[in-house]
């Protein structure tokens, strides 16, 4: 069970990560000590995009909740049946909360999934977009 309540303002700064990468046996990305699932957040003029690596999950098994100021990604990864010789893939329930600090258009949020990558597009509301105001010089 992994709960990360504030991925935005966690204690890990990019500098911390560089130091951690030095200590880890190799620089590969598989040794990331981050919360599960890993999340990328980006924004442009129109949308905030949250991307999430969730291999082995169908979009119907993922529980996406949009609250007043956050997006919650929840689900459970089921283990395979049989005798395990090696287990490295995480199983069990997970939850990740992404805080959103800008007004959003809740009605037009879309989510899609491809090759284990979840992409949630959250459109910003009209009021939060930058506007040009023309000033007439008298």
């Amino acid at each position, binding site marked *: 069970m992994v709960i990360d309540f504030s991925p935005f303002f966690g204690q890990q700064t990019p500098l911390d990560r560089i130091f951690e990468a030095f200590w880890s046996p190799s620089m590969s990305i*598989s040794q*990331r000590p981050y919360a599960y699932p890993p999340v990328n957040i*980006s924004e*442009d003029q129109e949308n905030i995009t949250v991307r999430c690596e969730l291999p*082995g999950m*169908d979009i119907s098994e993922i529980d996406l909740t949009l609250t007043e100021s956050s997006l919650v990604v929840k689900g459970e990864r089921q283990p*395979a049946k049989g005798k395990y010789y090696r287990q490295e893939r995480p199983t069990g329930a997970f939850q990740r909360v992404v805080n959103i600090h800008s007004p959003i258009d809740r009605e037009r949020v879309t989510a899609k*999934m491809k*090759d284990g*990558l979840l992409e949630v597009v959250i459109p910003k509301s009209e009021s939060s977009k930058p506007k040009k105001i023309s000033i007439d010089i008298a």
Partner: protein
Amino acid sequence: MIEETRTEEKGLPRAKPATDIVETADGFYIYMDIPGVSKESLIIDLNEDEIKVSGRTAYPSPDGEKLIHVEFGNGEYYRGFTLSHIVDKARIKANVKNGVLELHLPKAEKAQPRKIDIQMG
């Protein structure tokens, strides 16, 4: 070792995908987490007793998007396994779904437990 330095020159970080190996009644299953790798860019090589899986993620570079928080990126997955003799190499099946590679390694017929008929002398 030689291969590792070669990929680092190309700039893509190389990662070992998290892998489960499970035995069931109809053989072995290898599950590998390879999110972002499409079916087309996945390479599975079987050479004698060695099976090698490699694939590159193909996340589109976000144009005009400002990255706020980054925890993963493009990379190359690579992992090799040595197969046991009881695996029937001719019937190995691979299946990719939702970013997970499933390799089914059936056991060879001669490795299956069977009853031995007793002949009357």
